[in-house]
């Protein structure tokens, strides 16, 4: 019997698993997708919020402030990108100025450090490209930007390195109550017995909860569309620029990304289909119109990608964290819409502590840290020369836009929780995230995947199972 099964390998499942892997416990992480970090975690604003948005006393407020404080050190420890760049909520009218004052007061009550109300001149000095109509801003020094995929994958890599089993293509279809624990049943018929179940299933968390608990809640999917712009636009903003929030969320933001691009979005639209992540003409038009309020001269000709993310809005209006009262040993991490990503480290730690206490688990004597991952382009010429000397594959650039080498790609295929798809490689070391969007490097990445995994070229998929890239061989006989 396992000690813990975590359902969902997004940032929540990853954060709790990594904490649990510090203890002498048998832990398994299950995900219905063919790779980890493929749901809500895959597509969002990638921002670590400071914590002034959520109402005081909510779990959102508590975990956000705690989580934001953990990000910098944790990212360094596991080897994920993070930059503490600060954020501004911009006010463009006297009314909005009152709103940011309210946010300021709420932030103080929530215990957010480094908060400051600043005037027009100061904000324009820090972010000279902002629309000159700005009248003031709320500055939050502890806000940062992260790479949600890298962060999640690195957490899981670390957990796996310390004995956690991570299964993909493992969709949970039922959970049965046992004498002491649960039996988790997968779509393909596999069954696992476990003492504890942690439900971190994102937009499907309500469905998983219903398999076990009568304490019902609903998850409503809400989508948000985004633009990603080329790095040539990277100097447009240095930090995260919010507009005043509305009922539907934090509004359209303009932010720098950890890799130096600019991201603009999201929209907010409630949808029925929990798997629909399409963009729309009206959505993309809306972003451009709304973002012009923040910065007028964004050049969308430098757009390199549009995408849609999905957030798990819960019917309770707050995060649902902890053991279900009618199902001992069943823990929910649900309704973790924004600031979910920011809160993940704190939620992971808290829930892991609940379970450790419940099972009376002891800490491992040896906890292994992730082996450093080489990011070739960030090295000095001397370091580059050294790395190529050790492994000539680092001398071969596969992705021209982002200067990603063959060595880096081979590395992420063979790491714990390694890449098996073209997008899996992209999430782990970024070939295809540049301006050619994989036009040049895609076929080469596919070739390396096939070679390293011992597969045929047309067995390699882009992303999801069934996302085949090639059909048959051509008439040319080899």
């Amino acid at each position: 019997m396992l000690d813990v099964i975590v359902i969902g390998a997004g940032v929540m499942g990853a954060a709790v698993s990594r904490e649990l892997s510090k203890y002498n416990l048998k832990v398994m992480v299950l995900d219905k997708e063919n790779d980890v970090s493929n749901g809500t975690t895959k597509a969002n604003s990638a921002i670590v919020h400071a914590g002034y948005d959520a109402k005081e006393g909510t779990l959102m407020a508590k975990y956000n402030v705690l989580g934001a404080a953990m990000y910098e050190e944790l990212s360094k420890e596991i080897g994920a990108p993070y930059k503490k760049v600060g954020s501004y909520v911009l006010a463009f009218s006297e009314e909005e100025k009152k709103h940011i004052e309210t946010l300021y007061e709420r932030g103080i009550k929530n215990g957010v450090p480094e908060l400051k109300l600043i005037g027009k001149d100061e904000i324009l000095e820090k972010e000279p490209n902002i629309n000159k109509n700005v009248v003031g801003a709320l500055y939050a020094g502890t806000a940062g930007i992260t790479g949600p995929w890298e962060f999640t994958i690195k957490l899981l890599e670390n957990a796996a390195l310390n004995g956690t089993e991570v299964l993909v293509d493992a969709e949970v279809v039922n959970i049965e109550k046992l004498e002491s624990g649960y039996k988790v049943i997968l779509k393909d018929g596999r069954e696992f017995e476990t003492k504890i179940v942690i439900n971190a299933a994102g937009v499907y968390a309500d469905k998983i909860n219903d398999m076990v608990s009568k304490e019902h809640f609903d998850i409503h999917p809400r989508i948000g569309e985004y633009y990603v712009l080329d790095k040539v636009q990277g100097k447009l903003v240095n930090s995260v620029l919010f507009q005043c929030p509305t009922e539907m969320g934090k509004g359209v933001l303009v932010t720098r990304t950890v890799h130096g691009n600019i991201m603009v979005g999201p929209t907010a639209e409630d949808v029925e289909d929990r798997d629909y992540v399409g963009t729309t003409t009206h959505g993309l038009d809306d972003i451009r119109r709304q973002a012009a309020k923040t910065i007028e001269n964004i050049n969308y000709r430098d757009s390199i990608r549009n995408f849609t993310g999905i957030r798990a809005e819960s019917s309770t209006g707050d995060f649902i964290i902890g053991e279900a009262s009618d199902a001992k040993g069943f823990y929910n991490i649900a309704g973790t819409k924004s600031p979910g990503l920011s809160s993940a480290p704190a939620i992971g730690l808290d829930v892991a502590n609940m379970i450790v206490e419940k099972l009376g688990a002891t800490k491992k004597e040896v906890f292994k840290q992730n082996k450093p991952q080489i990011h070739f382009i960030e090295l000095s010429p001397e370091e580059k020369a050294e790395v190529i000397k050790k492994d000539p594959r680092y001398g071969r650039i596969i992705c021209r836009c982002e200067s990603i080498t063959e060595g880096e790609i081979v590395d992420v295929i063979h790491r714990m929780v390694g890449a098996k798809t073209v997008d899996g490689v992209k999430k782990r070391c970024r070939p295809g995230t540049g301006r050619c969007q994989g036009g040049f490097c895609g076929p080469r990445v596919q070739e390396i995947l096939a070679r390293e995994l011992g597969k045929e070229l047309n067995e390699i998929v882009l992303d999801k199972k069934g996302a085949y890239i090639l059909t048959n061989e051509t008439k040319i006989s080899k």
Partner: protein
Amino acid sequence: MRYDLVVVGGGPAGLAAAIEAKKNGIESILVIERDKELGGILQQCIHNGFGLHEFKEQLTGPEYAGRFIEQLKEMNIEFKLDTMVLDVTPDKNVHAINSVDGYMLIEAKAVILAMGCRERTRGAIGIPGERPAGVFTAGAAQRFVNMEGYMVGKKVLILGSGDIGLIMARRMTLEGAEVKAVVELMPFSGGLARNIAQCLNDYNIPLYLSHTVIDIQGKERVEKVVIAKVDENRKPIPGTEKEYEVDTLLLSVGLIPENDISRATGVEIDGRTSGAVVNEMMETNIEGIFACGNVLHVHDLVDFVSAEARKAGKAAAKYIKGDMSTGDYVELKNGFGIGYTVPQKFRLNNVEKGLEVFMRVRNIYKNMVLQVRDGENVVFSIKKPHVAPGEMEKIIIPKAKLETIKGKEIVVELVGGDK
């Protein structure tokens, strides 16, 4: 490492430039190519039609490239394959890497930039919809089909009627796929007339002008693509939607010169060509750094690339030998109907017989006169019965005419005729 000339890129432009520099007396030349072989994108263009101007016969891409590669080897010009240039400094130090030599710092007297271009992608034009597999740039699909020997789909829609899109419509058909249609945003095709005839008409593939893709459906692989007619502002017209059940969407929606290295070096880029601003010697704003081929501006015929590259090669040789003349610049301004010119400026001293100017027009025009004007004085003019954005125009202004120019600028424009 030290070379007189480093050529960045071993495609048609780089090859022709290096060969011409050698012919003009430069011995120490290095061509750096990032791919596993010389020839660039020509290697995946297995259709014929290359070389009509250059060799007066129809060659395939690999055949055309082959002739230059052979010449390069016969002339013992050095080249490095599978080698990536990371940086070119304004004082012409070239930083490059490969698996054999490791990290290289190469000191050069002159550098020719010949990195070619890349394709615009779905993200660049913001096509809405889901993000399944099965959306390819036409060039990526061409590589898979022609070089890797794999088909990318069975039922295909193509967006963009540029030459690559048209050629892939034929190629996919010949490989057994069903090409449902080619869809073009503009009211005219961006490809050569001969390709419309030979790649679409011959195979009964419809071309929808003033149409675009408004939705892509499919969670894993493309299942459906929706197109619509667009109005004069290129906005989709509601009610004109057509749905296609296809598994593949190929995009041939424009090429962009690949100037990331040039930009980092400080080379001035022309917003209209997306390539360097060059003078009559194909020299950029940085002395001794030249540009030619598709990295300078996107050509429709490789023959023109080779001709332009020869100019750059010859100029680099002149520069290395210290034979370059200086002088005041005259700027070329774009008047009515003209999208851009290359070069953007010239010095009379360096012009031998005449100044060759390449340009693209903004729209389809009939019975126009292309003229070059210095204030009110017409320096040069030529009749143009038919011009189109898809076909590059070239004029040669004789040196005698250039000598009559007064002032610091001339205007190139279309006058008269039927719009």
